[in-house]
């Protein structure tokens, strides 16, 4: 088998064949064939940090969003916040800030709705091991047409908000250094307000459905569960904050590692480890060290970490979530979905509040300042805390760039969850397609965006290899297109 794999590597240079894939899982077994290690490999690399060098700084927010078509707005805004600093602007006008927030809430809604309804809901509605042919959004449309349409319309609304602000649903143009490039018209505002009550109701339904899926299925609680550290941004009062705030990190028991940390010093609190078997790095909190410092980001981290949510419907949903965890943090990996829908509800409320705020219609859009050499931007992207860091030359061209993408922060956690699920479901069992999907379900809960970090939309092609402690390949399985398992050992 080793020889065969070496052949496949050679094929990579002279491209012939292998099971295609953006992501791959490898399991290592000990002498007793119990899972000793599980690896989730990220197999693509794009080299953004290099090829951005020499480009003018004002281009950055426009092509960083081409890293990711699923949350382009997050990259656009994180880069724009860094660029604001490069032009010496620390605070935008109230109208510009509100328009950027509106854009970001639209983004959060569409991305979360896409992930739950289009990608993950089939696992949760039909079962992890259900029929492969039916286990997708088309199956959901057939069996649950009302639910599927609500999901499609929630995502649509988020995309419409984005389109109104940026001119396009994917890769639009919204920011300029120090502000935004256009205001909101009364007609645009009224059009968006026209649907907001439906959107609020659908969002509440999505929360209720997820709460039910979680609370009524005890088997979901331990699935891939990790007692992890968490990192997120919070507002000045400890509230859920997706756009701007300080950094908070907590231990599994909820005690703080740091709080209200200024993100512009992020490199003092986070380091990233390179491992040979993945193009995605492994970040950790410097204070806790390489072994213990890994953490989770994203909806679960945010809903656990925040002290409250500023909008009432989402706050009420958060309190039920908190009660489920008996007042402490909820560590269930599948609770990511529940937390994600609480954020959809918060986004819907926040969009309504912003649209009803007269300042959103203002015309004072840009602030000017004195140029600086370094800019760092942060945002809570749908998948978690996202850092963009740029240094420029005197002529305004990029000299150095560093990105810590949300999915990268969850890298170790996804590996840990895969290991946990492999231990529980694959250990000693004959491996079927249904069981293999359990590994994907665990990864999927994180809503990994393997484009930024090299994105695959939802479903990872899968290959599983079982290797004994002495290095012998015990089993090698690939999912065929029919769903049948192909063994090559």
């Amino acid at each position, binding site marked *: 088998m080793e020889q065969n794999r070496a052949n496949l590597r050679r094929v990579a240079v002279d491209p012939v064949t292998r099971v295609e894939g953006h992501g791959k899982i490898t399991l290592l077994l000990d002498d007793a064939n119990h899972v000793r290690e599980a690896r989730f490999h990220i197999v693509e690399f794009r080299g953004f940090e290099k090829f951005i060098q020499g480009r003018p700084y004002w281009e950055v927010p426009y092509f960083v969003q081409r890293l990711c078509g699923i949350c382009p707005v997050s990259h656009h805004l994180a880069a724009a916040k860094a660029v604001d600093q490069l032009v010496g602007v620390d605070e935008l006008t109230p109208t510009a800030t509100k328009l950027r927030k509106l854009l970001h809430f639209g983004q959060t809604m569409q991305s979360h709705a896409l992930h739950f309804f289009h990608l993950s809901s089939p696992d949760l509605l039909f079962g992890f091991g259900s029929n492969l042919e039916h286990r997708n959004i088309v199956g959901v449309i057939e069996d649950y047409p009302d639910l599927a349409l609500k999901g499609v319309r929630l995502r649509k609304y988020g995309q419409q908000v984005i389109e109104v602000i940026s001119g396009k649903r994917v890769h639009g143009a919204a920011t300029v250094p120090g502000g935004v490039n256009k205001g909101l018209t009364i007609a645009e505002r009224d059009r968006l307000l026209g649907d907001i009550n439906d959107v609020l109701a659908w969002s509440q339904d999505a929360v209720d459905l997820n709460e039910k899926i979680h609370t009524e299925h005890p088997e979901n609680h331990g699935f891939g569960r990790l007692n992890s550290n968490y990192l997120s941004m919070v507002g000045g009062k400890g509230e859920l904050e997706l756009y701007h705030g300080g950094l908070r990190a907590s231990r599994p028991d909820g005690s703080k590692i740091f709080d209200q940390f200024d993100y512009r010093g992020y490199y003092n609190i986070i380091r990233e480890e390179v491992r040979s078997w993945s193009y995605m790095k492994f970040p950790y909190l410097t204070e806790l060290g390489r072994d213990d410092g890994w953490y989770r980001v994203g909806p679960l981290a945010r809903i656990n970490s925040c002290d409250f949510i500023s909008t009432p419907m989402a706050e009420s949903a958060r309190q039920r979530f908190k009660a489920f965890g008996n007042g402490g943090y909820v560590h269930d990996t599948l609770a990511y979905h529940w937390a994600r829908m609480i954020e959809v509800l918060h986004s819907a409320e926040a969009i309504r509040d912003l649209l009803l705020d007269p300042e959103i219609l203002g015309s004072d859009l840009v602030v000017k300042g004195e140029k600086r050499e370094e800019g760092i931007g942060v945002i809570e992207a749908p998948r978690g805390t996202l850092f963009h860091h740029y240094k420029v030359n005197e002529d305004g061209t990029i000299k*150095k760039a560093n990105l810590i993408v949300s999915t990268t922060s969850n890298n170790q956690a996804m590996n840990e969850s895969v290991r946990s699920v492999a231990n529980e479901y694959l250990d000693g069992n004959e491996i079927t397609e249904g069981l293999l999907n359990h590994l994907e379900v665990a990864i999927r809960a994180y809503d990994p965006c393997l484009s930024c970090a090299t994105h695959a939309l939802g479903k990872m092609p899968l290959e599983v290899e079982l290797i004994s402690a002495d290095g012998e390949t015990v089993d090698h399985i690939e999912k065929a297109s029919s769903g049948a398992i192909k063994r090559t050992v």
Partner: protein
Amino acid sequence: MTPVKKREAYTVSKVRVATTSLAGCFGCHMSFLDMDERIVGLLEHVEFSRSPINDIKHCEPCDIGLIEGALCNADNVHVLKEFRENCKIVIAVGACAINGGVPAMRNHFTLQECLEEAFLDEIGVDNPHIPNDVEIPLLLSKVHPIHEVVKVDYYLPGCPPSADAFLKILTDLLEGKEPSLPKEMLHYD
């Protein structure tokens, strides 16, 4: 070119469509989903083979293959060839598939320079080394558009093409017409 199905035929059996993303951002797939509710109508005439939205891992024999993204590693080339072998019609979708797009910006540098920047010279990196493992596919020295490797039947431009453009090209093919986009749907941004 032979029409995919005559209008009267597709009531009997659906047109089979596969989609994939090579080195790209998935924005084209997102735009495809921006058909919103109209996707329900499309599903009356179309069924999906391999696509990121289902668990079918390989392209089966299909009528139409929609390919987003450029070629940046050996896996991308393999997937592309599998699509070409299985799809009667291959459509290059979006800037990356058509001319390399943003991923091809790395062609101004050597691959080695890009890897060193990301894994050796980056801020706050521990254990700096360039990943190298049998589990990760070899990177190509340059990023290529897909027509350099396989024959492409149609090009759907845009970064990304709009949902309307997707729907128009698919509808034309479903109706057995030569696909043609009106000027207002033809965008390159």
